[in-house]
């Protein structure tokens, strides 16, 4: 942010990121429907546009024109704000993601990124926290049991998994030594990796953090098997049961935007962002990083989709147990290990680097072996039954 660009550069970047993000989201919805259909021996949307790619668009139009019913009991202000919060936060959190490398246009050289904040990673976490409000407010404002349960579930779920995710992210910026996303991407793009010939992506040195983030991002995005906030089989629609029309559409959009954002953050933090071999003429070397980024992101988006198609929904208490008893301890220990790694690394020789890394991995493995012992402690019984005398009457 030190350099000053003319206004059009800022505008261009914002619009480019916005459009790219929106398009990716639209494509994600289409891809999800096609992929899930493929796994279920169905065809999926195939009428509008080539391979039904424009289905999302017409669905969006439909949403706009549908009647927006506001139930009479709701808290009208909060009821209206909740979906907006979801969408706005979704758009804001993508702002810190660098989609491509440096490009030069009309004499200005800049990075394809809406805003390179010096607190970049924290911005993402902050937006994640704000997203909770969208769900909780929707659940509360609806004044109806299912949304309330959905809201309560998701507030607990999102807050606990935010901690796990935050710890995973913490080990990334400790390792990178910077909160600025461009620095994190830059370090991954250059410099010798742990293993010769393999890119220095943080997924390798920070593998446990990667695993924590991977599970955390599915829970944070509220996607199956962790889609307890909406859990259609249990809570009908969960927090958005009482919503209809475009307001419901905004929740849906927010959910899918979350998937894109999470995949983008994942790629940025652990897979080098737009990094990759660049060659060819100027215009080609601008396009390539964007393609790399999109390809990496697509990988995680497909991961989300496959999870949805393959797995049943986990139960609420098991989800919390997984978060608090496995992910958070693993994340916490790995933050310490990373910090130790970085401290020693500042003076150590390459041989001791290997030793320290090996020690870290050994510690992490040990942790993975020990953690299940803690998570299994309370079978599946939920609570002790209430005094049974009064129930029998």
């Amino acid at each position: 942010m030190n350099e000053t660009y003319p206004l059009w550069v800022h505008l261009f970047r914002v619009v480019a990121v916005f459009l790219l993000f929106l398009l990716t989201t639209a494509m994600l919805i289409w891809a999800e429907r096609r992929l899930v259909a493929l796994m279920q021996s169905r065809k999926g949307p195939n009428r509008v546009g080539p391979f039904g790619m424009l289905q999302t668009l017409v669905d969006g139009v439909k949403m706009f024109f549908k009647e927006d019913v506001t139930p009479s009991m709701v808290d009208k202000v909060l009821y209206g704000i909740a979906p907006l919060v979801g969408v706005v936060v979704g758009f804001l959190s993508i702002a810190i993601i660098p989609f491509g490398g440096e490009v030069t246009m009309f004499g200005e050289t800049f990075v394809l990124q809406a805003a390179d904040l010096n607190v970049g990673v924290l911005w993402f976490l902050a937006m994640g926290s704000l997203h909770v409000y969208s769900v909780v407010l929707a659940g509360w404002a609806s004044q109806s049991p299912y949304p309330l349960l959905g809201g309560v579930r998701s507030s607990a779920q999102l807050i606990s998994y935010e901690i796990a995710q935050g710890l995973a992210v913490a080990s990334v910026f400790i390792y990178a030594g910077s909160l600025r996303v461009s620095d994190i991407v830059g370090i991954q793009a250059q410099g010798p990796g742990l293993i010769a010939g393999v890119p220095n992506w943080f997924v390798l040195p920070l593998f446990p953090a990667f695993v924590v983030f991977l599970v955390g991002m599915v829970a944070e995005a509220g996607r199956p098997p962790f889609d307890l906030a909406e859990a259609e089989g249990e809570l009908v629609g969960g927090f958005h049961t009482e919503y209809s029309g475009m307001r419901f559409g905004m929740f849906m959009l927010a959910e899918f935007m979350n998937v894109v954002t999470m995949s983008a953050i994942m790629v940025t933090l652990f897979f080098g962002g737009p990094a990759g071999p660049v060659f060819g003429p100027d215009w080609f070397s601008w396009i390539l990083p964007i393609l790399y980024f999109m390809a990496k992101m697509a990988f995680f988006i497909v991961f989300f989709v496959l999870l949805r198609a393959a797995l049943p929904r986990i139960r609420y208490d098991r989800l919390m147990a997984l978060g608090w008893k496995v992910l958070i301890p693993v994340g916490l220990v790995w933050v310490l290990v990373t910090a130790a790694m970085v401290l020693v690394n500042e003076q150590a020789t390459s041989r001791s680097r290997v030793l320290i890394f090996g020690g870290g991995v050994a510690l992490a493995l040990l942790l993975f072996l020990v953690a299940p012992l803690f998570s299994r402690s309370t079978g599946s019984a939920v609570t002790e039954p209430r005094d049974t005398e009064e129930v029998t009457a």
Partner: protein
Amino acid sequence: MSTTASDDFGQDVFVDGADWEVVEDAVGESTITVNMGPQHPSTHGVLRLVLELEGEIVRNVKPVIGYLHTGIEKNAEYRTWVQGTTFVTRMDYLSPFYNETAFCLAVEKLLDIEVPERAQTIRVILMEFNRIASHLVWLATGGMELGAIGMMIYGFREREHILDLFESQTGLRMNHAWIRPGGLANDVTDDFVQRCEHLLGLLPEKMREYEDLLLDNPIWRERLTDVGVLSAGDAVRMGVTGPLLRAAGVPADLRKAQPYCGYERYEFDVPTQDSGDSFARFLVRLEEMRQSMRIIRQALDILPGGPVMVADKHIAWPAQQSLGPDGIGNDPAYIRHIMGESMEALINHFKLVTQGFTVPAGQVYVPVESPRGELGYAVTSNGTNKPYRIHVRDPSFVNLQATNLMSKDRMVSDLIAIVASLDPVMGGVDR
């Protein structure tokens, strides 16, 4: 006195049951009352569960039924005995052949007639295919309710193959009214055996797919294991039958205990499990599908020739076909006989079709082992051409009363798994 499940036979089980007009105040001291259903994705149609929730914990469940009341039992009193099959097949719409067979067995018992062996064997084949189809629906809907959206499609996909077989024989995918008092409406088509064998080749492979998908899936196991435990004692006291009872370790199966339709000739096992939880029911139903295939294979081997309807012209529905098995095209020889040769035959045809046959006065109860448990028909005749009273003991109805016992003090998610493992069909419950 406790309402929790226990193996101890000495305990009493209380079933809360009463008419009530208002749902208790929506907000209790620390509980809220939630109406789950009658419109809810996981209540198998229109079951309404009034839940008393303390946070996520279900403190009390009151199943409310009657939203699919069709008055079939009453209506059947105004129809002839043959028309009765058309009604009863619509009760438990996932197991139409069981309804038809049980009803027809009851009528045949009152008539004191012996149905030809070919008809009996075909009934067995169709019923066992019906069991597989019904269990497939259970697997599909149960999977979807627990979030396994793939299972939903797979289950219905294979069920469709079975329904294709039904359609090819009876003309209808469901609600066939094809099994009639005295036998079957028509004989099966020439390619019936071939179609059955094709299905028998297809299904085991598909079942392995389901097992690959779910059996060792940790989430699936976690959602079902120790959920909805119903001990053998509680199950017996609640009158629960079928896979639920067998999952609790009681090898109760009417096909073994009181064989009908010649079940004593087939070799098959009654699968049981000991734990009595939802996962045990899952395993029991999977194995039942395998055993059904085993029975079908044996039945196809011994499928005898001969008529599929009793010879008695006063009972046998005049449905001789010659042009096609789909009900189009009566046999010209038969038409010639009633239209040109014998006035008495025409009168008999007319009387049989419009008035139906009379059934000697009496009262019988005939149970069969439906996919959901003991499906019993208590039929009373006063000697006329219409039933005096039909009462159906529907397994879904009886099994539902164990809902509260199984789901008290469990989480809402568990309640969903429990209702899914009960596999209630509301058409059968409300009748």
